[in-house]
């Protein structure tokens, strides 16, 4: 019986054990799978939880690269926009898709009248895969082309750089040129001026939304440019330059150079002499022998070294012979003049004698510390190339001629910085185009020498050659400089001058330096033509100060014979 049962079903305990055992054996596999799944999802859940508890961060999106690279805006010190961006379109074609190229060319010529139809026809029949038709185009032109309904004509978006202030800040801002062009974007690169100097910062995607604030004040810039343009036209000059500096911070509040250009227009070709090119920034790049405006710098050196005082007498009666040349004065001078009168009456001989007292090594070192031996460090891309022109061998004769501004050619910006150093109480001024400036630098002359110089400059305007620069209430002090222009073949012209007036105001508590330079001015108002700076540049300084003082909030000071202390307190501008 048992054998029979053995062939059939297993019955009894062994069978039960096995049935009971089978689920256990497979149980653990199933359990393992479940555990694995639970573990997997658990891990996902835990990592999600950790992410939720951690720092939230901007999600990096795959297609955020399509956002157009924009260029940072440039604003003036008050936030007025000087350089901005406008979205625009460009027109391109796939000539292989165009069915009737000649008709399309005719239609395009109607929309863009300044391009000949033949040029369009040539492009559309070229058989190329891609050709630019016109970039950029205005929205109206885009609409007209769109309405043509021609296949094969497509638009790409791009950004155009616009300069709302126009020609007023042309030299300071410069311009842009396309660096990389794609179908749907252009990368602009700066070309000249601040656009080129700050190219990396303006193109930096992190700082694109932070406008670059310049030290320029558009209102003062406009006034200076207008007055100078007027003066240049009236005096039939080749051009001119003006620089307005804040003495305490070195900020350039206005820098104008004429002739200038409109940066909104594409660059025009210019085929005249290089120095008459409208794109040439005379204020920062022009190198001129600045003439008698150097005399106060010479006197300051002598005062600082303690060699003279403002009332020390200097021999001015007879010309000096040096190196086979004569140094003489244009007008007859008395036998001796005080240092103050050497400046007031602008004596070349007196300046040369002061330079000799200082001595060539110290004089050269002093001019170097004032910044005349190196290019200006201002934030313009081209300024680094404008090294002042120095004599190949700096002899005593060189020092004597440089003491009255001949033999060393520097820019009006160099001169403004040097006068700023004297106005600043003797600490070096480094001109800057960024709002905030750089603050005063190292000490060049003593405060007493600087203050004495301010008095001498004031005398020039009160009683000397700078009379026409006076504006009552602003205590302008300055120095005229009329330098004969260097003739390329050698020697000097006798009827062409560079007329400069370098001024500081108010001299009782100097705050601003204004330098105006004119290239070949001629004042024909009187019976004979006059070229002296006292009749050409000085009146422009007066007009500029008269117009910018109310804008800057400078109230006029009481006449100098009243209390000086209250006047100094009220000379501060009302608001910055």
């Amino acid at each position: 019986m048992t054998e029979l049962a053995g062939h059939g079903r297993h019955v009894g305990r062994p069978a039960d054990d096995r049935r009971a055992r089978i689920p256990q054996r497979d149980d653990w596999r199933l359990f393992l799978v479940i555990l694995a799944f639970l573990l997997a999802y658990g891990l996902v859940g835990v990592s999600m939880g950790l992410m939720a508890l951690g720092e939230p961060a901007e999600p990096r999106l795959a297609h955020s690269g399509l956002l157009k690279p924009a260029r940072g805006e440039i604003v003036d010190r008050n936030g007025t926009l000087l350089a901005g961006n406008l979205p625009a379109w460009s027109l391109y074609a796939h000539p292989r898709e165009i069915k009737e190229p000649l008709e399309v060319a005719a239609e395009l010529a109607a929309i863009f009248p300044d391009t000949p139809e033949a040029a369009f026809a040539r492009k559309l029949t070229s058989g190329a895969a891609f050709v630019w038709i016109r970039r950029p185009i205005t929205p109206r032109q885009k609409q007209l082309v769109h309405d043509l309904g021609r296949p094969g004509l497509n638009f790409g978006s791009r950004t155009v750089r616009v300069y709302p202030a126009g020609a007023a800040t042309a030299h300071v801002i410069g311009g842009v040129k396309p660096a990389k062009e794609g179908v749907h974007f252009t990368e602009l690169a700066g070309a000249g001026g601040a656009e080129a100097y700050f190219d990396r910062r303006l193109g930096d995607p992190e700082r694109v939304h932070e406008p670059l604030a310049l030290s320029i004040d558009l209102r003062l810039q406009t006034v200076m440019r207008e007055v100078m343009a007027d003066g240049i036209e009236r005096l039939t000059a080749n051009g001119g330059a003006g620089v307005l500096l804040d003495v305490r911070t070195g900020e350039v509040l206005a820098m104008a150079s004429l002739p200038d250009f409109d940066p909104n227009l594409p660059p025009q070709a210019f085929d005249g002499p290089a120095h008459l090119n409208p794109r040439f920034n005379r204020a920062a790049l022009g190198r001129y022998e600045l003439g008698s405006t150097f005399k106060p710098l010479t006197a300051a050196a002598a005062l600082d070294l303690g060699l003279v005082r403002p009332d020390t007498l200097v021999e001015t009666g007879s010309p000096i012979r040096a190196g086979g040349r004569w140094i003489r004065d244009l007008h007859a001078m008395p036998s001796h003049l005080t240092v103050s009168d050497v400046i007031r009456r602008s004596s070349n001989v007196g300046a040369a004698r002061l330079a000799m007292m200082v001595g060539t090594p110290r004089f050269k070192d002093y001019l170097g510390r004032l910044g005349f031996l190196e290019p200006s460090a201002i934030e313009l891309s081209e300024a680094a190339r404008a090294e002042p022109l120095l004599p190949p061998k700096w002899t005593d004769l060189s020092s004597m001629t440089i003491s009255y501004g001949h033999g060393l050619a520097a820019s009006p910006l160099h001169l403004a910085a040097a006068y700023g150093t004297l106005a600043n109480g003797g600490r070096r001024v480094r001109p800057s185009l960024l709002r905030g400036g750089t603050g005063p630098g190292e000490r060049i002359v003593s405060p007493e020498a600087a203050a004495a110089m301010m008095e001498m400059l004031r005398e020039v305007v009160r009683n000397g050659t700078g009379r026409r620069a006076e504006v009552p209430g602003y205590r302008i002090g300055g120095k005229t400089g009329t330098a004969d222009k260097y003739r390329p073949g050698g020697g000097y012209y006798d009827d062409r001058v560079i007329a400069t007036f370098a001024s500081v105001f108010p001299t009782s508590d100097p705050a601003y330096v204004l330098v105006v330079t004119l290239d070949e001015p001629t004042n024909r108002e009187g019976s004979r033509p006059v070229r002296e700076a006292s009749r050409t540049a000085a009146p422009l300084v007066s007009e500029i100060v008269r117009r910018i003082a109310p804008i800057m909030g400078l109230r006029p000071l009481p006449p100098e014979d009243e209390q000086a202390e209250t006047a100094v307190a009220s000379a501060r501008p009302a608001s910055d």
Partner: protein
Amino acid sequence: MNKLAFACSMLAIVVVAAWAYNVNYRTATALDRVEALRTKIAAEREHIQVLEVEWAWLNNPDRLARLVAMNADRLGLGPMTLRHFGRVAAVPFPPEPEPMLVGMGAVEDGELAAGLAMADGSAVMPPPRPAAKARP
């Protein structure tokens, strides 16, 4: 017991999976929304830039000078000169107004209630009364 554990763990898998996928889809939706918002922000920024450029064009000092010149007869503006500066202390205070009505000097409640009267006794205006209560 095993069946129960088995069932519970299956349920646990389903629940955890459902939750994970739910979070995934919500994240994807949020990312889409972020992208859409970013595009909108870029468009708004562009719009703002265009407006800023337009504002700057319209406020160009040369343009303003031309407008002033064109409207000189209506505006009557002249250049600011040194004579336009003055001291605040030099500006006189306005004079005390003459009391025209009786009781204007120091108004007290009783006088106000009585109404303001002219010197000859005729009433100028009735005493103030509160506004009518709003009907519910």
